[in-house]
């Protein structure tokens, strides 16, 4: 036996082992260590970049339910939002965050920040995300990644260059109902059989599509507006309708749902055909009514996926995604009441009694049978399908699970459900919908269209 080995005491061995493990962590996962830092309380210090409707109502309100966060700074160019952020944070945590107009000033002055939550207009997503990543912060950025595909590519490159975490806010990716539907029902039990079609929509009434107004008293100084890329206050409030500032309704609303096509089908489309126009809002830069079809080649076969965003919603309205298969169709939405699973009629479909008994599904009461009508040929109709539902939901705000996944990842307890690279792969086809509609031509995707 080597006499030297005897000279290493048990205490030495333990201390050296711990140091070794620590070194391994430092080398293998620097991001994780930085997050559990600072005041020793394992708090994650958060900067809120953009405190408008999305930043305040969707993200901040959900983050209030997540323990271990300290909101250190709020950054927004509009004092109305900025003051609202300061007051909201103060009311929640009992201390005011530092407030900034300019993100560069915030990143220069603030010490000890761990993460940035970015909920600014789409055309600022990429510059803000890249700045924060390069400043050493982990980033949660709202979708759509950016208003141009080039800007989105920069976000992926920055994430990979800095080694920081960058979660994109496709919150359905962390939604337990969506994850259960994909993992347990579609992939696990293959209850749809072969999926041959998908469709989704986000239709809104005119009332919900109007321009957002503002009080003259709250107008931002023109020099500030110009400095941050806005022509005037109207453009600042309604940036979603301008081509230079956003991708329009197809990316604003469609990004969530077209992402579900790609995620659930496990691949990206090979082609898009799109049509759109200014059917109602004649003076808007972006089309207000759009429809598009994506062609997919999946391992199971061809799938066509249609998507529409309209300024009418009274018939078949609302927002949802649907996957139609040879054995069942699944209609899923963030609104649980708009979701259902329909078993196809016919002898080729296995009985689902066992799935119900084992808790995979809940059978809903059968709809009333329509009365016989002289003006319809009953033999042409398929039998009404049995309707089922998921065995549960989740009692949290819609964005909370995705934020929880982000913060768990920052703490090294989880892996991001939608990092910038995966988000880009899913969003890339969406960038080509407007060009297809504008040129009235289908676009066959190549690696140039879809690759980083």
């Amino acid at each position, binding site marked *: 036996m080597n006499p030297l080995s005897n000279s290493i005491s048990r205490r030495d061995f333990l201390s050296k082992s711990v140091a070794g493990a620590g070194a391994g962590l430092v080398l293998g996962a620097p991001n994780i260590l930085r997050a559990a830092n600072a005041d020793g309380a394992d708090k994650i210090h958060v900067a809120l970049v953009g405190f408008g409707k999305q930043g305040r109502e969707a993200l901040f309100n959900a983050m209030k339910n997540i323990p271990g966060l300290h909101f250190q700074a709020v950054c927004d160019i509009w004092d109305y939002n900025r003051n609202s952020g300061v007051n909201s944070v103060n009311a929640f945590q009992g201390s005011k965050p530092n407030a900034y107009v300019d993100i560069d000033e915030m990143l220069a002055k603030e010490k000890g920040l761990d993460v940035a939550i970015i909920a600014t207009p789409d055309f600022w997503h990429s510059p803000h995300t890249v700045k924060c990543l390069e400043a050493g912060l982990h980033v949660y950025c709202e979708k759509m990644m950016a208003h141009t595909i080039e800007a989105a590519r920069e976000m992926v490159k920055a994430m990979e260059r800095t080694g920081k975490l960058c979660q994109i806010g496709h919150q359905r990716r962390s939604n*337990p*109902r969506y*994850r*259960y539907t994909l*993992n*347990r029902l579609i992939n696990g039990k293959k209850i749809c059989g072969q999926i041959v079609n998908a469709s989704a929509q986000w239709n809104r009434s005119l009332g919900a599509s109007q321009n957002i107004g503002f009080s003259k008293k709250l107008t931002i100084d023109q020099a500030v507006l110009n400095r941050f890329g806005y022509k005037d206050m109207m453009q600042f409030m309604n940036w979603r309708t301008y081509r230079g500032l956003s991708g329009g309704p197809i990316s604003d609303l469609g990004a969530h749902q077209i992402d579900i096509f790609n995620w659930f089908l496990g691949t990206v489309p090979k082609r898009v055909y799109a049509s759109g126009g200014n059917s109602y809002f004649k003076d808007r830069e972006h089309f207000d009514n759009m429809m598009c079809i994506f062609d997919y080649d999946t391992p199971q076969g061809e799938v066509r996926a249609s998507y529409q965003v309209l300024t009418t919603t009274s018939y078949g309205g609302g927002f949802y995604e649907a996957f139609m298969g040879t054995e069942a169709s699944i209609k899923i939405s963030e609104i649980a009441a708009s979701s259902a699973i329909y078993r196809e009629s016919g002898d080729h479909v296995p009985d689902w009694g066992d799935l119900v008994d*084992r*808790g*995979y599904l809940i059978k809903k009461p059968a709809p009333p049978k329509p009365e016989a009508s002289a003006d319809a040929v009953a033999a042409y109709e398929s039998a009404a399908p049995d309707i089922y539902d*998921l*065995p*549960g*939901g*989740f*009692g949290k705000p819609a964005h909370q*699970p995705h934020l929880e996944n982000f913060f768990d990842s920052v703490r090294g307890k989880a892996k991001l459900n939608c990092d910038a690279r995966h988000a880009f792969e899913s969003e890339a086809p969406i960038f080509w919908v407007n060009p297809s509609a504008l040129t009235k031509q289908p676009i066959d995707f190549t690696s140039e269209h879809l690759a980083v």
Partner: protein
Amino acid sequence: MSTEPCCPNNKLAFIYGALLLRLWLAVRAIQTGVEKYAGTRSGDQVVAVDGAANAEGLTAAGSLKYYALENYHGVPAALMKKFQAEPLMMKFALPLYDKILGPTLVLLGITILLGIASRTSLFLLGLLYMSLTWGLILIKQDDGVSWLGIHMILVVMALALAEHNRFGILKKW
């Protein structure tokens, strides 16, 4: 063919009988006392699929039973109101009775279980059941009175079998 009984003195059967009765009465008293610390928490619970909690985090609204000191309720609230309305009930004693009922049941159950002064413990348990019986007679809960009557018979049987009681910590009293 032999005509002799199989068990001439039947001593072992009495020992078993005493032990079973002791255990039954102890479990009945302890758990009844512990249940007075039970409460329910309503909230979302993880849904079980195929016999296991689903990994995706699907939940369903439900209520969860849990035990805590702050849940303690000696006399159920519904019965308490009825007792308070009874002219023969000593109002000053009710809050005290409410406070001690649960701990007393647990304590007597433990002493009976461990065989600590078994006879006195059984006697006190009988008195406790008698007090409950009196309260239920007042508010005309005849079913409850019958149940307690059965308990009293079991307590008396346990006392009758006391000489066969074994495995006790304190056999005196």
